[in-house]
């Protein structure tokens, strides 16, 4: 049992009981809920008692748990409340989950990003549940006049063993809500968990499959107008003048004007706000505004020189020919080691810009008045959006509310809340509630792309095929993809990491597993090349390096735990039966650590008509405690499909600043038939505090594929997307 300081101050708690209308709501018993016949009517309480910001308890024992973080498909709306419910010790079937609005007083880090919601929320979620449980126990102890230490709980019922007395949470909720907040509480021993570690269905699952209006685009309000924007067709351009004469009299059109979301010309913001000014079109319905937008004539001006993909490539090639006077990391004497090597292996890897393309295009609702603003929609960073809206509307932050809807995908795209700012400025101008909608084309050509990258690797082997030196030199748009202190740093005596950055007026941003999404492919492909040159099994080769990192690591700032890293490799080796002869099956391995989680994968390929088909992906994961196993597997499967899809098929290119793809007819995403035939996931069971799963399974998979493909065809593919060089079958 762990005792923790609650860190709560009295202000954290709303100790007034709130009266909600009683009534009936349709609930679902998710334990047995494969069929609708398992539905049960959940009796709603007459009265709710708010125990803390995370939860309120009804007089009948039904519990509402607030999910603090934005839900973008990573399933935190289920897994975060599961952690609260575990420590509260309540029956999961009696839990209703609600999305919390932005509330910086009650919650910390209401962000969906970096796979950090569970890792960074773990303690506060447990504390919220445990603190509430303790207050319920104290209320019962007072009522029965017995010591708290004699009381136990199970599934929302408090029991006094000696007398056999029991009380439901609902019966003491009113008293508990008025208890002093304990200064310290006991947390459960993980071996006593009854909710964490068991698979629970997505709390919105039933609503999703019946088409309930959950998303930002589904938010409608009385009197709401519809808005779209026309941004420049090419990076480096801005609004010159526009002629609205053709559209202002079109049916349903209310107003056409220019907005500017970056009046100060903030450089940092420009990296993600590619188009500070744009034309806004406002009208009565989506289709009327869409039609008007097509008829709008804007004359665009060049602000900065237009760029093309060929320019970007040439600039990165040139950078990789240079050396850095101040490398990011340098161990030993790499130059001397390379000079003395028996063999030097060298290879350049690259990947293009990628659009995020969440299925729900960018959109936001804003209702801005002279006194206040209400914002509703899909956003991964509500606090940051509120700050920007405050700065640009002139309203104080405390007068701006932000409510997060369920989000039709994020992948990093909704970290950049310019669309909320745009919606707010449009609403402010037209003095009406407005929903801003991006067309798919607006979304795909707006930027904040995954940067294009290029990286050069060199490795030196001695006469006995020992790895004696390792060099990595990388560049990318607005920043290098290199993590200088990640594996294999720490395993090689002579090591050099150099980073370059390519400036650009194409805006880039965090895209699912930033930098890792490319560098894992390059690094883990290259290590296979080195293993092959050394005549070693690729898993054995990696494990030898980890042995070195465990026994005598080089340097002190290595960013990984070599034992856990080796652990996932050993697990995937065992589970996949690595080393067994499988006629016609070509296997590749890869392992990567990012976002605090360790992943190793084996890809099984077969060739059909000279085209590769992915038979199976084996995946071992060490994310510590797994909160919701089946949903965790879903995340991992999705990351694998996503990583394969983008590495195989997707790319964004530019001519004269203009994005060359604007919709899914030419921007290729992976589809059903191209997905792996099977994925099997294995978790390391080590009881360590949990880490996230939204990103870590994506980065390694393209290297496992590339390594299998090399075995199958003898060809080493180094540039993404692979579809330019091979055809893949479903």
């Amino acid at each position: 049992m762990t005792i923790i300081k609650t860190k709560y101050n009295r202000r954290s708690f709303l100790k007034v009981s709130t009266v909600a209308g009683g009534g009936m709501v349709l609930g679902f018993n998710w334990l047995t809920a494969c069929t609708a016949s398992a539905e049960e009517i959940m009796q709603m309480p007459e009265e709710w008692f708010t125990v803390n910001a995370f939860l309120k308890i009804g007089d009948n024992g039904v519990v509402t748990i607030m999910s603090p973080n934005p839900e973008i498909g990573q399933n935190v709306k289920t897994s975060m409340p599961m952690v609260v419910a575990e420590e509260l010790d309540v029956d999961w079937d009696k839990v209703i989950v609600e999305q919390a609005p932005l509330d910086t007083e009650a919650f910390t880090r209401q962000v969906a990003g970096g796979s950090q919601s569970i890792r960074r929320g773990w303690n506060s979620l447990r504390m919220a549940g445990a603190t509430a449980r303790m207050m319920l126990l104290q209320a019962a102890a007072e009522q029965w006049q017995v010591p708290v230490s004699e009381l136990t709980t199970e599934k929302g019922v408090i029991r006094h063993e000696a007398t056999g007395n029991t009380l439901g949470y609902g019966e003491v909720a009113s008293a508990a809500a008025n208890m002093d907040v304990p200064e310290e509480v006991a947390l459960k021993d993980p071996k006593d968990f009854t909710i964490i570690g068991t698979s629970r269905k997505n709390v919105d699952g039933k609503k999703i499959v019946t088409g309930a209006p959950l998303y930002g685009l589904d938010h409608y309000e009385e009197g709401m107008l519809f808005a779209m924007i026309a941004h420049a067709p090419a990076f480096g351009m801005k609004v010159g003048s526009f002629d609205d004469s053709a559209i202002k009299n079109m049916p349903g059109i209310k107003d056409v004007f220019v907005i500017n979301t970056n009046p100060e010309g903030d450089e940092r913001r420009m990296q993600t706000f590619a188009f500070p000014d744009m034309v806004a079109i406002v009208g009565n319905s989506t289709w009327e505004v869409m039609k008007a937008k097509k008829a709008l004539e804007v004359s665009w001006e060049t602000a900065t020189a237009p760029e093309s993909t060929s320019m970007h490539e040439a600039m990165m090639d040139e950078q990789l020919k240079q050396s850095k006077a101040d490398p990011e990391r340098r161990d030993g004497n790499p130059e001397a080691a390379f000079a003395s090597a028996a063999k030097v292996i060298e290879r350049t890897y690259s990947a293009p810009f990628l659009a995020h393309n969440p299925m729900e295009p960018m959109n936001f609702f804003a209702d801005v008045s002279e006194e206040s603003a209400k914002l509703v929609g899909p956003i991964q960073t509500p606090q940051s959006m509120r700050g920007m809206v405050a700065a640009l509307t002139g309203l104080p932050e405390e007068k701006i509310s932000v409510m997060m809807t369920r989000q039709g995908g994020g992948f990093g795209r909704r970290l950049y809340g310019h669309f909320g700012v745009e919606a707010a400025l449009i609403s402010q101008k037209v003095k009406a509630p407005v929903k801003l909608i991006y067309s798919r084309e607006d979304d795909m050509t707006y930027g904040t792309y995954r940067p294009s990258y290029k990286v050069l690797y060199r490795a030196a082997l001695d006469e006995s095929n020992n790895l004696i030196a390792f060099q990595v030199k990388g560049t990318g748009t607005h920043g290098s993809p290199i993590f200088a202190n990640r594996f294999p740093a720490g395993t090689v005596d002579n090591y050099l990491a150099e980073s370059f950055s390519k400036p650009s007026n194409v805006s880039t941003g965090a895209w699912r597993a930033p930098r890792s999404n490319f560098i894992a492919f390059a690094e883990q492909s290259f290590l296979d090349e080195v293993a092959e040159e050394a005549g070693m099994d690729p898993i054995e080769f990696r494990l030898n390096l980890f042995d070195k990192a465990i026994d005598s690591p080089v340097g002190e700032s290595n960013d990984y735990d070599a034992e856990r890293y080796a652990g996932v490799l050993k697990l995937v080796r065992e589970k996949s039966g690595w080393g067994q002869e499988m006629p016609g099956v070509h296997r590749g391995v890869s392992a990567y650590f990012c976002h605090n989680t360790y992943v190793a994968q084996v890809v099984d390929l077969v060739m059909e008509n000279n085209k590769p088909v992915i038979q199976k992906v084996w995946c071992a994961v060490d994310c510590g405690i797994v909160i919701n196993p089946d949903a965790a597997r879903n995340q991992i499967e999705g990351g694998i499909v996503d990583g394969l899809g983008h590495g195989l098929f997707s790319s964004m290119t530019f001519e004269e600043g203009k994005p060359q793809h604007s919709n899914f007819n030419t921007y290729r995403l992976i589809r059903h038939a191209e997905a792996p035939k099977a994925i099997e996931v294995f978790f390391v069971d080590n009881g360590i505090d949990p880490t996230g799963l939204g990103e870590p399974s994506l980065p390694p998979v393209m290297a496992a594929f590339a390594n299998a493909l090399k075995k199958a065809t003898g060809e080493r593919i180094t540039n993404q997307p692979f579809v330019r060089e091979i055809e893949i079958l479903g």
Partner: protein
Amino acid sequence: MANFDLRINGKDYQVDVDPDTPILWVLRDHLQLLGTKYGCGVGQCGACTIHLDGVATRSCLLPVSGINKQKITTIEGLSETGNHPVQEAWVAHDVPQCGYCQSGQIMSAAALLKKNAKPTDEEIDLAMNGNICRCGTYLRVKAAIKTASGQD
């Protein structure tokens, strides 16, 4: 603007809209049937899939004036209480991640099973290839279709 009579999910509606308005936006903006999603507007992603006389159809490209007595079914009308075998299988397999594409996936799957009660893997791939899932839930979609068709 003109009046159009529509039969949607077994109910009659009349809407006064431009004849070229896609059914998608009639459903969403004018009838508040919000389960049918906008994804690409060019018939490439399948998020807007509805049934037109039982056949899976992309509503983003279908102008309201192109409807001639055909019956429209949307995700809201697929079953009374969300108990269509495809919907139940989706819940059983906990298919959705973000969930945005899933109405379209479900409508495509339900249309497939209507004309082919026991589809093979290849037939599922073919029928579902027009529905993009950006979260990559394709394996679960396939498993759920197998379950819904009694093949697991």
